[in-house]
């Protein structure tokens, strides 16, 4: 084989691999992409039934209820709409009423059956998706002190502001009032 042919062999092989990869990616995208929805989206019927989706918002205060067989029932709200959720298993350490949460699962007969409740590793953190969903529903500011603090600290200000101001106080308040899981 000439030099040119050899190079072509590898270019061809590379293209084949790329083709296979593209085919794999496209099929996998088709089946495995998970869309994020807010409770309002669910209420408006924008969510496909029986497809794996994410639902995010605030855990409604007073909604957490222990059911038999290690199931927990709670509700996720964006201020405008509220969707009941059930989850079997151990909730993440930072799951609390009034806090932002993202769940993944399927909508079955009006109840969202969560297969996963995504753990947030830092209590001063608000998932961006949830923040945006709250903004969209117009409940961003009055979503409780936790949300208000986030607006100033995590999204705009410097960490100095977060420390000296709202977020610091907020952290203290959480430690005291975070009833769930303590």
């Amino acid at each position, binding site marked *: 084989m000439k030099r040119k042919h050899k190079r072509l062999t*590898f270019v061809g*092989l590379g293209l084949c*691999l790329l083709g296979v990869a593209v085919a*794999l990616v496209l099929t*996998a995208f088709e089946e495995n992409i998970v869309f994020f929805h807010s409770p309002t989206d669910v209420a408006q019927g924008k969510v496909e039934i029986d497809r794996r989706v994410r639902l995010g918002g605030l855990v409604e205060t007073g909604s957490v209820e222990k059911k038999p067989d290690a199931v927990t029932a709670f509700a996720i709200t964006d201020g405008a709409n509220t969707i009941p959720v059930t989850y*079997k*298993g151990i909730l993440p350490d930072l799951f609390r009423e009034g806090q932002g949460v993202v769940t993944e699962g399927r909508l079955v007969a009006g109840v969202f059956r969560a297969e996963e409740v995504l753990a947030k*590793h830092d209590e001063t953190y608000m998932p961006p998706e949830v923040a945006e969903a709250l903004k969209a529903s117009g409940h961003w500011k009055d979503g409780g002190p936790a949300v208000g603090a986030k607006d100033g600290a995590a999204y705009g200000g410097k960490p100095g502001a977060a*420390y000296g101001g709202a977020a610091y106080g907020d952290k203290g308040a959480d430690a005291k009032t975070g009833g769930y899981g*303590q």
Partner: protein
Amino acid sequence: MTAELGHFALTLALFVAIVQSSLPLVGAHRGKSQWMAVASPAALLQFGLVAIAFGCLTHLYVTSDFSVLNVAANSHTDKPMIYKISGVWGNHEGSMLLWVLIMALFGCAVAAFGGNLPPTLKARVLAVQALVAVGFYLFILLTSNPFDRLFPPPVNGQDLNPLLQDPGLAFHPPMLYLGYVGFSMAFSFAIAALIEGRVDAAWARWVRPWTLAAWIFLTAGIALGSWWAYYELGWGGWWFWDPVENASFMPWLAGTALLHSATVVEKRDTLKGWTILLAIITFSMSLLGTFLVRSGVLTSVHAFATDPARGVFILVLLIIVIGGSLALYAWRGPSLVSAGLFQPISREGALLFNNLVMATATAVVLLGTLYPLLLDAIGGGKISVGPPFFNAVFIPLMVPMIAAMAVGPLLNWKRGDWRAALQRLWPALLAAAIGGTGAWAIVTDGPFMGIVGMTLAFWLGAGTLVELAERMRLGREPLSRSLSRLKRQPRASWGMTLAHFGLAIGIAGMTGAGAWVKESIQVMKPGDTTMLAGYEFRFDGARAIGGPNYTATAGQFTVSRDGVRIGTLESEKRIYNVSGQPTTEAAIRTTVAGDLYAVIGDRDAATGGFVTRLYFNPLVVWMWIGTLVMIIGGTISLTDRRHRVGAPQTRANPPARAQAAGAD
């Protein structure tokens, strides 16, 4: 004072880096040796200054000086000493300081031990290294100063995120950074070579050990992170295809490809342009990883409280470094002429195949990681791309590569004979058949991928051993001759054998833990038992215990099999005093066959029991052992004689050789 001293040292380091990045570059271009000579002392000085700055921050942490914002926000007087120290890099500002410290350390190593490098190449490498460092110094000083004061100082600190107070995680970031930043050496060498317009075997001999060292650290860092996620998060899993995990995995994939293509440059003087491109891509992936993790665009444990200015700054840095280097590559790359010719079926061809697959895999992981961000940026909605996607794409790509991995080392350079190679691989074929059938027979209800995984693991493991036997001519010569051949194997070959064999062990572990995991969730009262994978878990009850800076509920399980008691497991749910943040400590009992894994959850008020989550994770320990074998292999290869002797053209130069010998 300490904080001001640290800040001052860091500022001085910036100016030293500016000098180091400009004078030697101009000097090398104009042939002024005095200007080039600035590079080495500047690199040493720069490292000294950053070390002072890092030492100052460590001192502030150890003495709990809460008048410094960074310390107040991440430390506490009650925190154990090891976490006071690890707290230095357990936050954004400190971790960036660690980044520049390691970067300066590597530059310092080139300055100290690079006596046998051609002077212009050395000057250019150090200049490029300093140029990247300038960007990071500016980033720290302008957006993330760890030495900012806080007034008035609080009585005590806010404590380090409890999840980070763990021995595994104390060493995960430094390892990862040694890996990320280690690739900056390969990058600097690549850019310097592009400026020089010359890539040869001596160049590759210099680049390889740096890449290898970075690869070893990155492998260890990823494994530590995975291990930590496995026992600390209490989800029973060890790899979640989380964007942050991907951010460390992409440089690993590209770096592995670079490691293999650098071998081809060194041995066969070909694939030069491709190797340079890989070096650029690998470091770009490291930078991209830093951007993804530090900018807060992702939701993860690593996303500390974020500031948009930082994300924009790193993004600009990213564009300058990646865009600039790729432009330079487009301009100068075509002038790199490769000399060695080879047939598609040859050792070079096999290594190139590895490179193509690894590059494709990197691209796929990159796409899956960035696609949600891109879609969101153009207003296409919020989506997430999770494990199902990555498993569906990544595993099929890896299967042919692992199949080829056993064949490649048996092919000759230049022109190989695949038929002969396959004939010699018959024991591996047999082993693969046994592995696959065994998996099918033992785990009758497992998924198909479990059988594929085991087949591949046995094929690769046995194939690697066959190759070793071939090299010692086992069975074709008297045993004593074979053994003496074995002893004479260069360490680099041992490195390859061990790394490939380690991967085989790791694949077996990943297959077991990925495909055959058994899980059970239920409410258990004291005395209740649950059967799982043939093991009986009895819940003995829970009690309250205390730690240095936390209180905990500890639940105890007794595990037995067929009536024989195996041992007890104690899982904790901790509440940290300062933050009030709870964490879970999974209880794990490791056996050769698999891990018994128990997690205690919340108390169920109605029944008085506890929610418990039990797992049987088969073969997990093999994953860690395999990684360890890979790391040992890499380390042995790093001590190969040829890396110490140095570039061939300087061998006639006695002082240079003396210096290189002093390097080890």
